[in-house]
């Protein structure tokens, strides 16, 4: 009994540690500038107008829309492009499969810097001559686009699959019993039928997990927008805007915290709606890896 109480006491203390920063964000966001510097915790008066002030000072609506676009399209891209790849790794036996899969996994440990520097230059150019070369030879005509300063360098790669999502999906696909797939095969179905009729319907939780992970990842991403979107004030995402907000707007902590809240609220809502998916997804990568 005593052990249980002690156990709970420690856990509650740890919970407080995790909770207090959030409480401080909320309270500070509602304080006056002067009060944010003091020890008084309860806002006096409650400055609901702080949120209005934040929206007035920066184009928060546009940044939210950009972030939403970035996160949403990346999510679609990753889901669409990873399912078949994971299937090929999980449910088809072919020579060299493990070796290629190792290659996929090894890209997980690539430092992003090794690709962002060259990719930045490539995206910044009046688009890679080779893409224009390809497009002009397949009848699309020469393409002239300048991608840096738009969301494209962040979104396009997502449509060409992502190692983490492939890994997570593969882990899940492997748990599907062979008998279910054999049933389709007996009916004369091939891999596409198995994928459509068995694997995808059974894997909805895993697909949901990679979708949500990707969404949150892109929503929170800072390095990518910092490198690719800096040039265009119109294209910034919330993470970038928030970093500029504190750095350049000569603003007070209360407004910074109000902006932070606006940034975090979608994440918190998604988290509470889909907690189980996240926890199962995380568990799948960590424990069965």
């Amino acid at each position, binding site marked *: 009994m005593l052990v249980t109480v002690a156990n709970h006491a420690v856990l509650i203390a740890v919970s407080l540690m995790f909770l207090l920063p959030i409480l401080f964000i909320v309270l500070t966001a509602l304080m006056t*500038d002067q009060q944010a*510097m003091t020890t008084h915790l309860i806002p006096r008066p409650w400055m609901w107008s702080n949120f209005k002030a934040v929206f*007035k*000072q*920066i184009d928060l609506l546009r940044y939210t829309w950009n972030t939403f676009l970035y996160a949403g399209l990346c999510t679609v891209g990753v889901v669409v492009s990873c399912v078949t790849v994971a299937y090929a790794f999980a449910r088809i036996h072919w*020579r060299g499969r493990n070796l290629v899969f190792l290659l996929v996994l090894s890209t997980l440990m690539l430092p992003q810097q090794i690709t962002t520097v*060259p990719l*930045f*230059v*490539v995206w*910044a*150019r*009046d688009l*890679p*001559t*080779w893409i224009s*070369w390809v497009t002009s030879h397949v009848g699309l005509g020469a393409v002239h686009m*300048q991608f*840096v*300063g738009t969301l494209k360098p962040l979104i396009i790669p997502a449509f060409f699959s992502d190692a983490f999502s492939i890994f997570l999906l593969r882990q899940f696909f492997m748990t599907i019993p062979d008998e279910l797939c054999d049933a389709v095969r007996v009916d004369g179905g091939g891999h596409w039928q198995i994928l459509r009729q068995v694997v995808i319907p059974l894997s909805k939780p895993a697909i949901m997990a990679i979708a949500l992970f990707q969404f949150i990842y892109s929503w929170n991403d800072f390095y990518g927008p910092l490198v690719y979107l*800096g*040039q265009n*004030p*119109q294209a*910034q995402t919330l993470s970038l*805007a928030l970093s*500029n907000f504190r*750095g*350049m*707007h*000569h*603003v*007070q902590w209360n407004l910074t915290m109000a902006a932070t809240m606006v940034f975090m609220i979608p994440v918190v809502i998604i988290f509470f709606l889909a907690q189980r998916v996240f926890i199962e997804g995380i568990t799948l990568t960590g424990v069965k890896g």
Partner: protein
Amino acid sequence: MKRRLLLYFALVAALALAASLALVLAAGCGGKKSTPTSTSGSHAPVTITVWHPWTVSSEKKGFENAVAGFRQQYPWITLKIVPYPNSDEFDTNLIKNINAGTPPDVMISFGPDYVGKYAADNLLIDLKPYMDRDSFAMDQFAPAALSYTAFQGKQVALPVLTDAYGLYYNKDMFAKAGISSPPKTMSELMTDAKKLTVRNSDGSIAVAGFVPLLDFNEIGPADFAHAWGGTYFDANGQPHIGTDPAWASALTWQKQLVDWYGYSAITDFYGTYVDKEWTSQQAFETGKVAMCWDGEWRTAMIANDKANVNYGTAPFPAADDHPEMYGSGRVGGTITGIPRGAQHPDEAWLLVKYLSTSTDFLVSLANGLGNVPTTKASAASSALHLVPQFQTFIDVWNNPKSGFSPPLTATGSGYADILNSFDEKWVSGKVSDLQAGLTQVDTDIANQLALGTGP
């Protein structure tokens, strides 16, 4: 089957290799050089894009109002004004855009830090041909303007108002401490700083006389060295921080004051106020420091914040053995120029000319922002409404010994970080041999510059 697969992979690999090769080639070719000068006789409607880094809404509005005269004068030119949200990242992102071939027609930047690079890499076009055509003379600005708008003989930018730095002092505190006038020498500054400091019972600092630490609010080691007549580079363009005695004197002075406060006491104080520079909680405005090195804009901020501080301004003190330096200081501020690859360079020039010389524009902007008007005509304008304390900064701007620091180089001003971070280490007491340290700073700066210019 296996062979086919191998073939397929070989094909894909070859394609990838070809692609990366193409990328290398694509990356290799720079943009084409723009050829300025052509008479703009046509009055067909034109839209030009202007990037500026003012972020506060009142400043943005102030700029919009100030360019109204331009719109009137050139009704066929439409201005597309884009405020850039982060002035510290402004230049690097502009460079990215110029290299990507998507530059604005006109750029306005807060700082001349990259002017050397702009000129050396032809990122901004040389305005000479336009200036010659329109008999545009540089002598309408103070001589200091040349120190940060031209490099390697290329006039790639023009000043739009400027910043000048000096000493703010709290008159009430001075009176209370029995000090009659602002310090003129560095030893007076030291004595006054000590006299004006108030400590709490636990030894921590309640009011600091003067905070000699990097970036409080704007000061750096180079500004101390300026009081001794110190410069970064010798006549051959080699860094000589280790050999010019000004630097060792300046840094020794700085360390003496830091040690008097106690390093930990002064850094605690610093940590409390350094990030409040741009708020109404700023240390000088709230009476937490008696003297402060700051830019001329603080006069406007004090007025805007309705800060209850009775203050005066003066040039920064000079070293006791260098009285000739008194009255000069660091200057340099907003610049405008035309990026390479601008769509409408001729119309852009009209705007650049307007921004840098229109008295109405400069006066209106100077009144709004509290920056130093750059042309002689605008500084003399009767329409200028600036507080009496402002005169100090106009004088510093016009002083022939004033100039921009750190000096322009072909690779930007990043090299100054080396000195600044050495200074941070020095005042913390982690450097045993000052002279050796400064010599190392020289070497590191020379290497950094060499790394930037390449073979």
